[in-house]
């Protein structure tokens, strides 16, 4: 019986069909998915903070509306993803606890501070850009609910990416101070964006298994290369310099060569020592703590309502 189920699962994967919540799946597959989806959901939620940092200071009402809507979309993405994770038998409160107790991670990119409004544009351009490169293949993820959530998310992310790029275009056509802000923000976010694809393939032991399971479709280095190739012409169109003297087109490979990111910094941030790790987690803990009485009130009211309903019968 067990073997039969396993074979069915393997065939589903091989034929590029979708595994659905009620289907049997190996526990490793389930665990990997839960971890990945949760981390992805947490990233959406924590990712609200660096951008949220500029909502009250956005320099025009139009930009304020765009930014507020974007941050709101991220909360929405978090909600879809927590729902997708719930189809695997975990619940959201449990995942929230794991985020707050730092037993689950979120994307390290959000541990960097947003220091100027140009960061909002650059996050749209580079960070959402990198996220899209990472996520488009996930739309074909073997696990149905995750793949379908990604379709919706990718659509909105592309929209955000265009808005970010458009902000940068506007700023590059603005005052010299605005152009300097864009260059400065690009300098700060370029390397962290490259790190978003994870460690080099040689240091990414789980990649092979994830690819076999149809969760991942490309290696970290493949995706990183894709992102660089895509981004260089965008930077040129923008008139911004990417901060890597090793970045040159290699006609033999048909790709851009580029320098290694500082993987020590990557590891330090991952281990909790980035510029904003403590602040990001503390903000969520504070919201959770300060909101406990509200959640309790809602639960108490719901229970009373149910009780009243029963008594009325």
């Amino acid at each position, binding site marked *: 019986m067990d073997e039969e189920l396993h074979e069915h699962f393997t065939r589903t994967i091989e034929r590029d069909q979708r595994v659905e919540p009620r289907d049997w799946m190996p526990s490793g597959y389930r665990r990997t998915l839960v971890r990945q989806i949760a981390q992805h959901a947490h990233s959406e*939620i924590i990712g*609200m*903070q660096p951008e*949220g940092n500029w*909502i*009250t*200071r*956005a*320099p*025009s*009402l*139009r*930009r*304020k*509306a765009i930014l*507020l*809507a974007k*941050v*709101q979309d991220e*909360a*929405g993405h*978090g*909600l879809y993803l927590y729902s997708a994770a719930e189809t695997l038998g975990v619940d959201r409160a449990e995942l929230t606890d794991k985020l707050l107790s730092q037993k689950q991670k979120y994307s390290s990119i959000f541990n960097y501070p947003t220091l100027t*409004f140009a960061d909002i544009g650059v996050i749209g351009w580079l960070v959402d850009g990198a996220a899209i490169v990472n996520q488009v293949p996930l739309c074909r993820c073997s696990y149905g609910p995750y793949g379908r959530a990604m379709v919706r998310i990718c659509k909105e992310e592309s929209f955000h990416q265009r808005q970010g790029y458009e*902000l940068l275009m*506007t*700023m590059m*056509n*603005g*005052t010299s*101070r*605005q152009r300097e802000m864009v260059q400065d923000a690009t300098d700060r976010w370029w390397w962290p964006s490259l790190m978003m694809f994870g460690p080099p393939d040689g240091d990414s032991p789980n990649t092979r298994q994830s690819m076999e399971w149809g969760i991942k479709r490309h290696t970290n280095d493949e995706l990183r290369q894709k992102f660089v190739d895509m981004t260089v012409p965008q930077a040129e169109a923008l008139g911004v310099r990417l901060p890597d003297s090793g970045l040159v087109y290699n006609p033999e490979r048909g790709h851009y060569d580029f320098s290694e990111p500082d993987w020590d910094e990557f590891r330090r941030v991952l281990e909790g020592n980035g510029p904003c790790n403590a602040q990001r987690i503390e*903000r*969520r803990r*504070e*919201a*959770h703590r*300060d*909101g*406990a*009485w*509200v*959640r*309790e*009130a*809602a*639960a*108490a*009211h719901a229970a*009373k309502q149910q009780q009243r309903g029963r008594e009325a019968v």
Partner: protein
Amino acid sequence: RDGLATYCLMLGDDALVLSHRLSEWTTRAHELEDEVALANIALDLLGQARMLLSRAASVAGDGADEDSLAYFRDEREFRNVRLVELPRGDFGRCVAGLLVFSTWRLAVLSRLTRSADPVLAAVAAKGVKEVTYHRDYAARWAVRLGDGTEYSARRLHQGFADVLPFVPELFTPHELERELARQEVAVDPAPLRPEFDEVLRTVCTTAGTELPEVSTVGTLAGGAGRHGVHTEHLGYLLAEMQSLARSDPEARW
């Protein structure tokens, strides 16, 4: 025309300042669903503010636009009621404030749909739908908090105690509002008080709570928010809101 422009600023500034306060809840609410809801309300109000400020600018016809009005007026030139300036507070305050504000604004906007000014009438028509949702959201939460735990009932009660002192100002028309109301352009809020009280009474009955007795916050020689006499909170809010726009006045975003 100056009068109409100023009236648009009044309603527009109300929306702009409250939108700012609500947007402060982003990343700070008790559940993601409520962060989404509060951001939605903030976005609706921001949209209303943009339409009203743009209308004020085009009526005044002096080269201003929504951004110059939002970012380059000083505190004394803002025309919003003081209620919307109060610091964020906790969720009990948020719910009480939003219930009071949206009940009042809904009463105003629903009359304003018949304004002699077609733009105001159109803005009001759109606003009525939005603010109806805001009021319902606040009312639902008032009921949950009032009927929830002892502690939540206390927080709601304190929230009302903090905001009710600013309610009489909402129903005290500025001379301009009265003047424009006579021309059927604006709405005189004074006669709307019974309708407002009735809504609050209904919500409080359902929530099993009673509104606290409070003293009214005073005016300065009769002047309040509509005259540019604000609380000390507004200056800090504007310093933050306007800081980047003012740091490079030549910039376009």
